[in-house]
């Protein structure tokens, strides 16, 4: 077998390394040939697989490298080897362990045959023939060579030695029993090996046993062989001066890869189309900063919010100094004053004193007192927080319609009726609205044409006229006038002739039979002569000064008021057609200020200083008592519907009573700055007015609803000015025109004004 180690391939290297293991068996001459042969047999016996592997290995390598070198003859060798092996295998399968020698010999024979063939075929290669010859490895003690030893089975010898003499078989006298005994008794039996070639038993030495053990363990036979020699690193991270391969870098390593570009563009497209969602960067849910006091107990905060700082004390001034400037020291008068004053009134709680130096300031004499007072303050003055109501004042004002939407109402002064020389206490308009009557302190009653302010008639009544009242019956034309203690019934002779004549007939033609039931407090008398010519038809003499006259809506009854503290004779009701008078009240319930008839029902309103009493004239009992909540009622007026009363008072108030609602005012208007003298309702329009000593007339809108649940709508709409305040008196009377939204007011400036 020839090994040609050429080139530098790894394969060769590894083989070289392997060669280090096996060649000792082959290349190096064995120390003792019998031992070696015995060894081989031992291998054959004990480890067939090993032997086979070895053969295989050698054969395969042989074939491999021989193929590389030269083909022809070696291939033949190879074939023969294969054949030999196959036959070996067959024989091994068939034969027993003892056949090993014979087997070897057979192969040797075959090899020889091959050698013969080779010598025959190729003469020129004979020189090299013994290079492969393994015959030198033969056991030189027996020259038969490598033949199956059973060939010598039947002979007494087993071969021939170098001298050609027969080597005789040792005398085999050992039977099975001896063998067994030997096995049991001979301590070296386990290391005794039978050498078939010589037929002797050989006892292996310790070195040989050790070698066998090592080989059996798969270790190297040579103890001194270092199987872990350091390796030479051919391929390392270090750049060597000589490259392993000297190829230039590929072009693809430095141009962009089209495939990768395609892949990336596909991904980009997918991201754009939303097929792939790029991984979202997770916003850290926990914020970095947070309110440390967010979960603070709110009660603590509330306590802090309600914290009331103590009132700031004034800083000490010069007067507190021990050495104040002289102007801060008290003079004698100041000192006297200070001593006179109550402690609460004093400007300073102490007297400033002057000391030349701080050392001379005495101890504070009131120290204990002051401490005590402070403690008392702390104890007795609990501080309280008053919650300020944060309400827009505009929101508190009830929503009222605008005055503009409540028209018509009087807005401007249109006419002034001039002519009186004294303050005009009372005005009254005829039911048709054509005439106006006014009574004045100058002792006259004047009749005016409303539309032109023409004074049509003047009647001198000889006394200050306190009150005039036009008969509300349109079929009559009469005026009641209160002068001093008399009530005059005037016929103004204005308007329809028929009406005038009928009213005059009423006054003249009433029966004279006046049953005198003792001394009547009221005396009716007819006038004559000059007075009759002036239109005064009847005189009703009262015991005291009459302040007010008012007619019942039908025009037959007339009420007159004589305020008196002491008497029950304060109110009289006169019946014109029968010329009777009666006093409806037996008791004095207070100073009667004003009376009024209910426009529809038989009720009679009597205003005393503080109350308005409503009497049922039919049942003769009091129906209601209204509390005006004012100190002194001046005037009342009854709504034409009869369910509402307004009441003016001298303490500047105007009270509206809803009789169905309560006996207390539904609304109190305090628009006037001075005493309210007169109040009036309009007969048709939802208007009422109040006249005051401050010279103004205030017109209010007062809608009354039929629905009992809806309260009246009261809106002040206009302040009418015009009257001049004379002797602290402004407007004394006010009355509405019966059909137009006009108002007449009479004042202390001797004028009557018409506002339209």
């Amino acid at each position, binding site marked *: 077998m020839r090994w040609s180690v050429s080139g530098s391939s790894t394969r060769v290297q590894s083989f070289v390394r392997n060669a280090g293991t096996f060649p000792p068996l082959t290349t190096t001459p064995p120390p003792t040939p019998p031992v070696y042969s015995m060894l081989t047999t031992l291998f054959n016996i004990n480890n067939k697989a090993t032997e086979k592997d070895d053969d295989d290995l050698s054969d395969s390598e042989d074939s491999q490298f021989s193929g590389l070198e030269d083909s022809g003859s070696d291939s033949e060798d190879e074939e023969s080897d294969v054949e030999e092996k196959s036959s070996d295998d067959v024989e091994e399968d068939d034969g027993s362990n003892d056949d090993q020698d014979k087997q070897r010999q057979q192969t040797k024979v075959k090899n020889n045959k091959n050698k013969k063939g080779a010598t025959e075929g190729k003469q020129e290669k004979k020189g090299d023939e013994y290079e492969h010859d393994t015959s030198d490895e033969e056991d030189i003690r027996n020259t038969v060579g490598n033949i199956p030893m059973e060939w010598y089975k039947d002979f007494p010898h087993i071969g021939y030695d170098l001298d050609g003499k027969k080597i005789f078989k040792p005398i085999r006298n050992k039977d099975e029993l001896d063998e067994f005994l030997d096995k049991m008794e001979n301590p070296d039996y386990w290391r005794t090996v039978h050498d078939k070639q010589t037929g002797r038993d050989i006892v292996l030495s310790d070195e040989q046993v050790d070698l066998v053990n090592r080989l059996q363990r798969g270790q190297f036979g040579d103890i001194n062989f270092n199987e872990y020699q350091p390796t030479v690193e051919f391929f390392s991270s270090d750049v060597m001066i000589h490259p392993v391969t000297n190829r230039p870098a590929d072009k693809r390593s430095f141009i962009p890869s089209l495939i990768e570009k395609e892949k990336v563009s596909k991904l980009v497209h997918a991201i754009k189309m939303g097929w792939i969602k790029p991984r979202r960067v997770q916003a850290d849910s926990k914020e970095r900063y947070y309110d440390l006091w967010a979960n603070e107990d709110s009660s603590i905060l509330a306590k802090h919010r309600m914290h009331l700082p103590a009132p700031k004390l004034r800083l000490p001034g010069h007067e507190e100094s021990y050495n104040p400037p002289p102007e801060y020291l008290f003079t004698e008068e100041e000192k006297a004053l200070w001593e006179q004053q109550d402690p609460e009134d004093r400007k300073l709680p102490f007297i400033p004193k002057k000391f030349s130096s701080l050392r001379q300031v005495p101890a504070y004499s009131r120290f204990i007192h002051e401490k005590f007072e402070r403690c008392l303050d702390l104890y007795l003055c609990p501080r309280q927080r008053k919650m300020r109501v944060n309400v827009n004042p505009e929101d508190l004002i009830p929503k009222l319609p605008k005055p503009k939407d409540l028209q018509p109402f009087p807005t401007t002064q*249109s006419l002034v009726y001039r002519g009186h020389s004294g303050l005009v206490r009372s005005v009254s308009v005829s039911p048709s*609205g*054509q005439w106006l009557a006014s009574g004045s302190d100058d002792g006259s009653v004047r009749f005016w*044409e409303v539309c*032109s302010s*023409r004074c*049509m008639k003047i009647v001198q009544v000889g006394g200050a006229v306190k009150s005039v009242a036009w008969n509300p019956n349109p079929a009559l034309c009469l005026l009641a006038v209160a002068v001093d203690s008399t009530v005059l019934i005037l016929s103004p002779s204005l308007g329809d*002739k028929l009406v005038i004549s009928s009213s005059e007939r009423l006054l003249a033609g009433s029966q004279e039979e006046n049953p005198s039931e003792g001394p009547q407090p009221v005396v009716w008398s007819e006038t004559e002569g000059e007075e009759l010519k002036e239109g005064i038809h009847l005189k009703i003499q009262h015991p005291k000064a009459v302040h007010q006259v008012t007619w019942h809506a039908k025009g037959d009854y007339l009420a007159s008021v004589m305020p008196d503290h002491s008497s029950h004779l304060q109110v009289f009701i006169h019946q014109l057609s029968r010329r009777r008078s009666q006093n409806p009240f037996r008791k004095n319930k207070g100073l009667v200020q004003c009376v009024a008839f209910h426009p529809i029902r038989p009720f009679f309103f009597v205003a005393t200083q503080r109350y308005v009493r409503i009497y049922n004239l039919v049942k003769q009992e009091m129906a209601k008592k209204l509390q005006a909540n004012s100190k002194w009622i001046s005037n009342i007026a009854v709504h034409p519907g009869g369910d509402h009363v307004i009441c003016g008072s001298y303490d500047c108030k105007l009270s509206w009573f809803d009789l169905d609602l309560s006996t207390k005012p539904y609304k109190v208007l305090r628009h006037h700055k001075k005493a309210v003298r007169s109040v009036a309702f309009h007969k048709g329009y939802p208007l009422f007015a109040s006249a005051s000593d401050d010279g103004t007339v205030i017109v209010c809108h007062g809608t009354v609803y039929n629905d009992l649940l809806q309260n009246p709508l009261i809106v002040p709409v206009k302040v009418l000015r015009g009257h001049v305040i004379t002797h602290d008196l402004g407007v004394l009377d006010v009355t509405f025109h019966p059909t*137009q939204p006009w108002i007449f007011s009479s004042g202390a400036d001797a004028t009557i004004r018409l506002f*339209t």
Partner: protein
Amino acid sequence: MKLDYLHSSHFLITTKFESSLTASHSKVEFDFLVRGQFLRMPLSAHMDTEAISTEDVVEIEYVEKITAPEPEECMMHDDWISSIDADSEWILTGSYDKTARIWSVDGKAVMTVAGHLDVVKDATWVKRDGLTSLLLTASLDQTVLLWEWNSERNKVKARHCCRGHTGSVDTVSTDPTGSKFCSGSWDKMLKIWSAGKKRIKKSRMPQTDQGRNRRPSSSTPLMTLSGHNEAVSSVLWSDAEEVCSASWDHTIRVWDVEAGAMKTTLTGSKVFNCISYSPLCRRLASGSTDRHIRLWDPRTKDGALVLLSLTSHTGWVTAVKWAPTHEHQLVSGSLDNLVKLWDTRSCKAPLYDLAAHEDKVFCVDWTESGLMLSGGADNKLYSYKYSPCRTDAGA
């Protein structure tokens, strides 16, 4: 020539206008009209207020300026003057002293017509036949008296006493032919009476003629028109068979006298004191208690449409009267003592304020002969000369 307020804008003065300047009229004042409105301020400001676009072509008309009425006469009465009716020769006034007076146009007292028992609220001429004139006086004593006055003999004779009203008769008006008249009263009624002669019964005249108060024959109304809810304040004939009445019930009603029925109602918001009708422009002018003079079209069916409102007075408007010859002019008297001359083309402000009176003005009137009259509570009847112009010069 007032052109100073026109300098700011560009417009051409026509040659006609130039020629009229240089013609015989040596000193003529003009007023300028832009779209039917008098120019009372610079043209640009006027166009701003009237919302006329500056892009438009604006035609500016000019008319001869109405000259200020010149006070002519002052006729003193004994009492307040309640009414005036003037024609070309005579002036008839009613007074609160229960009489009516006849004055000549140059201010001479000619006649005092006494007979009423109470204030004469209205007086009017009925017609004139030569020297004989018929006149009416309405009084607070609920009667209307028809008088016959001969101007030559200067004798007045009561022909009728028209009784029937149950309130003061505040207004009376004769129809255009002078054969009928209508009276309005405080009793809310309108009554139509005949002014004819046939009912005169001379035989009864001496019997009732006792002392001062001679009683003329009574006559009864031809027709009573009821419908007003309040006193009738003013009545007039707007056509041969049509009567307009103004009332305190805030309405003006138009009545068909022939049928005796109401035709139209014009509803205002305030009491009407007076109305006047102009056949030239066919408009009703009303004066009411709220200071405004309103113009109405009596033929409109829907009623409450005010065409124009003239506001300058500060008191009740007690008298209005259209100019007899001019379709745009009217005069008004008010409780604020002023008489104002208006042109409906300048509704913002009157043309002239005539502040002659010292007290309330109750009545105004025009004559075709160029006289304006006003009377009031200061017992004075003023007459003013104005320049009557029938047509607008440049229009």
